[in-house]
């Protein structure tokens, strides 16, 4: 899975554009990338762009839960943008669509 990080310093916003499948194998890559990019001292918004993620499993979901908790602990905000139908289906199945900010 490819992950591209786009930083908007003016708006304190970092967008991670994912391309691939988010399973147990790739979840660790996402964790390492996002955790390395966390800004501990300021309030930032972190966006996970999932427009090009055709597959997610419970390990990927679990990693997103972990990241949201870590980001909240740092006073930040996590948003999930443009989930595909396949990904949205898994969010709904687990009711995590109510836990995350989806747009």
């Amino acid at each position, binding site marked *: 899975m490819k992950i591209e990080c786009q930083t908007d310093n003016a708006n304190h916003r970092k967008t991670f554009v994912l391309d691939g*499948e988010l*399973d*147990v*194998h790739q979840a660790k890559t996402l964790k390492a990338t996002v955790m390395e990019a966390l800004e501990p001292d300021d309030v930032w918004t972190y966006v996970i762009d999932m427009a090009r993620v055709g*597959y997610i*499993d*419970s*390990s990927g*979901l*679990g*990693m997103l*839960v*972990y990241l949201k908790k870590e980001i909240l602990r740092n006073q930040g905000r996590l948003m999930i943008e443009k989930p595909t*139908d*396949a990904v949205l*289906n*898994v969010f709904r*199945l*687990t*009711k*995590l669509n109510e*836990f995350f900010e989806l747009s």
Partner: protein
Amino acid sequence: MPGSGEPDVKHVIAAAPDKTTLVDLELSGNPRCLALVRRLLEASAHSLPLGQTLLNDIKIAVTEACTNVIKHAFKYDASRRFGVSLRISPARYQINVVYEDAGFDPAAIPLPDLNNVREGGLGVYIIRNIMDDVVYSTDPPTGTVTLSMVKLLKTTSATGGQM
């Protein structure tokens, strides 16, 4: 099929007796094999009237089952092996996952609390919500666990979530 060229998968499946094992794989405990399993499922569904949504659901359920083996039973030990077999007929799509886990107790699988979200524990919940029939069987003398998952194909209405 000597002299007849490659048979159409649809015809092979239609001619197969129910519960015939069409694919029998031995996989390593390396998480990289999960993407391979998904590609295999996509190929097996090529000539079946599954539809993209149903195929995605089956891919999720099978990946969850294999992930549980690799994470919880094998603890990422890539030297261990487990089996995945597909038994496909026009009416049903059955996947069996067979592995060794001497201490496994299906009754001990906790239900996730969806109102108090945690990082783990969603895999079996997802499997049970997607597939029409989910059965864990164990053979204590050998420590062999068989997870059998069935999706009925002829029903077009939503049939998941009965477990």
